[in-house]
């Protein structure tokens, strides 16, 4: 059994330090709110009755495609949240270790804390979902307002989503604990832990099975196959290519930046990126996907705008446009949240680096610029390649789109720009936290 005094000590410390809870709980609340509302939206499309019965298939398939597109940003956000609750446990655990807690006790406590944070956050996220329901109920599909009731997911489905998120938190906390070496005197973070690819694979398989199970709850049809093939061809293959090229592109642009840097900010940002181009790619891959989607779908919709007004499909183009805009903006918002969380975490993790730079006399505004450059610079490099290749691949469609409906193409560009702008904005929102962290006195920060 867990020794009670140690548990009490740990709980007291954990609760006293409210700030250390704010971020992970808030992160899980965002993930849960966004995930449940996305699934509710998709299920709404699946269950709608249409004036023209054959339209149901089209709508179900399109909404499944949207779900696939949103999966990557949502996974990014969830893993950003999970990373938060396993960060920097060493210092706190060391204290308990000296009190005499066994290493098993310590592990159990950290796991317990991560799970409680996830449970608290996920339930709070339920509140966020409740706020979104009436808003999403304003949507018009097939010429009618869908209404808030259509956006309410059955309770078991909500619980399933929550359970998945809590499981994810538990698994990634357990994995994070493998990095913590507990010796009789101290607790420190190991660097040489082999990464467990099979666990990631297992999580992916479980997630896919869960989605399919959810699917079976609501529809029985070939839509899933069609949607999967469509997604695979349209987005999967380009994304696979990008994920091979992504870190390389980040590295190339950082190398260039390092060579040509005139200011210390750009030099430090470039060196930081060069030290770990994969990290930047992980954070930004969804931005690339969404930009790619915006260009592709934007062109397609512009062409389809031609066919508008034919009997039976008069609403389809409008609905597709609404759906596409919603998907892309929702996706970008999700990524922006993930970037925000990652930035907050990295401010705390790299506190010493920033504080040392400030000690040498670097103004906080310059330090902030370094931090923001490590997001915006690789983002623009990646977008250039992603949007460039999308434009080349989709040249015929886009060309036709510009001819047929320049307004639609312009609209797509506006939406994509708005979405992309959310990312630097998110990183800017964390500037105040940097200033407080850097100016705080040097000692007495951990624990």
């Amino acid at each position, binding site marked *: 059994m867990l020794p009670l005094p140690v548990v009490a000590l740990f709980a007291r410390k954990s609760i006293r330090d409210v700030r250390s809870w704010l971020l992970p709980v808030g992160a899980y609340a965002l993930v849960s709110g966004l995930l449940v509302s996305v699934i509710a939206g998709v299920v709404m499309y699946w269950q709608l009755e249409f004036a023209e019965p054959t339209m149901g298939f089209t709508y179900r398939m399109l909404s499944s495609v949207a779900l696939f597109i949103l999966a990557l940003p949502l996974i990014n956000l969830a893993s950003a949240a999970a990373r938060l609750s396993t960060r920097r446990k060493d210092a706190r655990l060391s204290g308990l270790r000296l009190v005499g807690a066994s290493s098993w006790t310590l592990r159990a406590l950290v796991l317990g804390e991560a799970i409680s944070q996830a449970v608290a956050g996920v339930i709070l996220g339920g509140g966020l979902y409740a706020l979104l329901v009436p808003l999403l109920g304003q949507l018009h599909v097939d010429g009618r307002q869908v209404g808030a009731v259509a956006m309410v997911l059955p309770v078991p489905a909500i619980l399933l989503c929550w359970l998945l998120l809590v499981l994810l938190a538990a698994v990634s906390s357990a994995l994070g604990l493998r990095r913590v070496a507990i010796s009789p005197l101290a607790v420190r973070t190991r660097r040489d832990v082999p990464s467990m690819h099979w666990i990631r694979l297992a999580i992916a398989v479980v997630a896919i099975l869960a989605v399919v199970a959810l699917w079976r709850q609501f529809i029985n049809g070939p839509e899933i196959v069609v949607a999967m093939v469509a997604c695979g061809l349209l987005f999967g293959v380009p994304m696979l290519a990008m994920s091979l090229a992504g870190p390389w592109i980040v590295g190339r642009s950082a190398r260039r930046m390092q060579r040509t*840097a*005139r*200011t*210390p900010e750009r*030099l*430090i940002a470039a*060196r*930081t990126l*060069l*030290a770990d181009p994969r990290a930047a790619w992980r954070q930004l891959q969804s931005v690339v996907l969404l930009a790619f989607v915006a260009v592709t779908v934007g062109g397609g919709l512009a062409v389809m705008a031609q066919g508008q007004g034919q009997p039976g499909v008069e609403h389809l183009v409008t609905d597709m446009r609404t759906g596409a805009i919603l998907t892309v903006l929702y996706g970008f918002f999700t990524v922006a949240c993930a970037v925000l969380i990652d930035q907050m975490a990295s401010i705390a993790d790299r506190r010493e*680096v920033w504080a*040392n*730079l*400030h*000690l*040498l*006399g*670097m*103004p*906080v505004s*310059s330090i902030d610029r370094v931090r923001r450059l490590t997001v915006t610079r690789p983002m623009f490099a990646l977008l250039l390649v992603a949007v460039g290749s999308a434009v080349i691949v989709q040249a015929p469609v886009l060309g036709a789109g510009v001819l047929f409906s320049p307004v639609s193409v312009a609209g797509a560009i506006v939406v994509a720009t708005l979405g992309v702008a959310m990312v630097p904005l998110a990183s800017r929102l964390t500037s105040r936290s940097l200033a407080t962290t850097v*100016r705080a*006195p040097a000692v007495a920060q951990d624990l």
Partner: protein
Amino acid sequence: MSYPQLQALDLSQHYGPTPALDHLSITIDRGESVAIMGPSGSGKTTLLHALAGIDVAQSGEVIFHGADRPVSIHALSSEQRADVRLRHFGFVFQQGLMLSELTVVENVALPLMLCGVDRASAQQTVSAWLNRLGLAGMEDRRLGELSGGQAQRVAVARAQVCGPDVVFADEPTGALDSVTSGEVLHALLESSAEHGTTLVVVTHDESVAARCGRTVRLRDGQVVSDTAVTGVMAP
């Protein structure tokens, strides 16, 4: 006319009940080399941070006299103090304050670039400094590829590269063996003497203190002795 370089007046700082600085006053002249000694917890680091404008003591005042008019450190905002540190002070701490991602040249060039010197001429100045400190050929190494003594000599180069008025060192040789620490100290004292830089060194090592012109001993946040060593020659 000669103003003192740094003046601390009646500094007090409390963390909890015991004072880290207890109504402490000290005057440091231009070009002096001052060793600050004392038992652990006697307030040496706290004093150094207050003198350098890294932190502001809870009461009292620090006046810094650069080339032009005197500045009251306590009257400055946090960003203004950062600017004073950048333009007038250099730092050598026990753990280097280096960025591990940057190369040696880039690390040392950083303060120059922050002062607005362009990258190419900053790197030239840096190369000259590295040569002088026996670090030629290490320009493109990372921190992890240097020995402890080399890393501290890089830190000395970085502290001196902007031509500061004062260099602050907090146990610069604390983590080194005696031979290496002699080399680092030599680099620090020689470069300061050559440029007339004021030097404030916190140290536990009597042999370090013996090579400074003046030794100030602290206990419980107060100065208990302040002795000038006459006849100390620049090494």
